C-alpha cells in the first residue's frame, strides 16, 4: 500500500548496504582460473557474510514464485 518514496534512480544515490550485499554476495559472475582466493574460499566467505542479511528461518515462509513463463520475452 505504501510505496517508499525516494526510489527514483539518481546518480550518486547511495544504495542500502543490505541490498548491495544481497547482489554482490549472491549474484555476480564467479570467474574461474588462477584466482587469489579459491572458489571454495569465496563460497565460505559468502556464506558467512550472508548471515548479515538473511537468517535461516526466513527461508521457510516465502511466497511461491510467480511463473516467469508469463513474462514478455524481449
Amino acid at each position: 500500500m505504501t510505496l517508499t518514496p525516494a526510489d527514483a534512480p539518481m546518480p550518486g544515490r547511495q544504495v542500502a548496504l543490505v541490498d548491495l550485499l544481497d547482489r554482490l554476495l549472491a549474484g555476480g559472475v564467479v570467474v574461474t582460473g588462477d584466482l587469489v582466493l579459491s572458489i571454495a574460499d569465496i563460497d565460505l566467505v559468502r556464506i558467512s557474510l550472508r548471515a548479515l542479511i538473511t537468517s535461516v528461518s526466513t527461508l521457510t515462509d516465502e511466497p511461491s514464485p510467480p511463473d516467469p513463463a508469463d513474462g514478455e520475452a524481449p
Partner: protein
Amino acid sequence: MTGTEPTLTYVYAVAARTPGLGEVLARLTGVAATPLTLLAAPGSAEGAPAFAVSQVPAADWNATALKAHFEDITWLEQTARAHHQVVEALAAHTTVLPLRLATLYEDPDRALTALREQYEQFTDRLALLTGHTEYGIKAFITADADSDPLPTGTVPAVSPGKAYLRARKAQQHAHEEHHQAAVRAAQQLAATAARYAAAYVRHPAQSGPLARDQGENILNDAYLVPDEHADAFRADIEQAAAALTGVRVEITGPWAPYSFATPPAQPAETGTGARGAPT
C-alpha cells in the same frame, strides 16, 4: 602506490567493449583508490568481452589479508561500494556482467587467461543482457493493527487465566491473518512484476542484523526488465502496491544485472531461489 610494490589484479566486471570505454574507465577510481584499466584480448572487436581491472597492493589483498578483511564490516562496506561504483559507471555506458566481490588474480596475464577461457560464455551472456536492467522489489509487512495490548477492561465471566488465554489466542489469530494477507499481497505484486520481466530471481527474505531496521521482509525479488518496458513495469508496480493492504513496497534499482550475471544453468545459491532465463 609506487610502481615497485607488488600488486594483484582486481576484476570488477566483464564489459562489452565500446570505443569510449577506455575513457569511462580513466575517470573511475576502484577499490583502495586505485585507477581502472581495461584488460582485453589483443585485437578483440567492439562488443567483445573485456575485464575492467585495477592493480591493488598485494600485501593488503592476498588470501590471508582478505580473510581478515571480510570480518570487518567497515572494510566490507567500503569495498562493496567502491566495487559497485565502478560497476554502475560501466553499466551506464555498456552492457556489463558484474563480478563477485573480491575477484583477484596474481597478475593481468592470469586474468587475461581466465577471460579467454570464458570468452564464449561471457559473449553469450552479454548478448542476452543487452537492453535489460535489473530492478529489485521488496515487500514488508506493515505494523499489525491488531497488535494492541491485550484487552483488560471487559473481563468475561470466566477465570482471569482463561480470559487471558482466549484474548491471547484471538490476538495470535489476528496476527496470523495479517501475515497471510501480506504474503498474498506480495504474491500478487510478484505476479504483476513477472509480466514485464524476462527473468527473475527470488533472493531470500532479508532478516539478518543488517536488515533489522526495515521491518519484516516477505518478498525480496530481482527482475530483469527489458528497457522498453521499464517505465510500464515501474508504473504498474506502483499502482499494484497502492492497491494492496498490509504491505509496504520498495522498488530498488536500476541495478546492473548482478542477479542475472550467471546463466541459469548454475544452481541458485539458496536452494529456494528461482532463476529464470532471459529468452
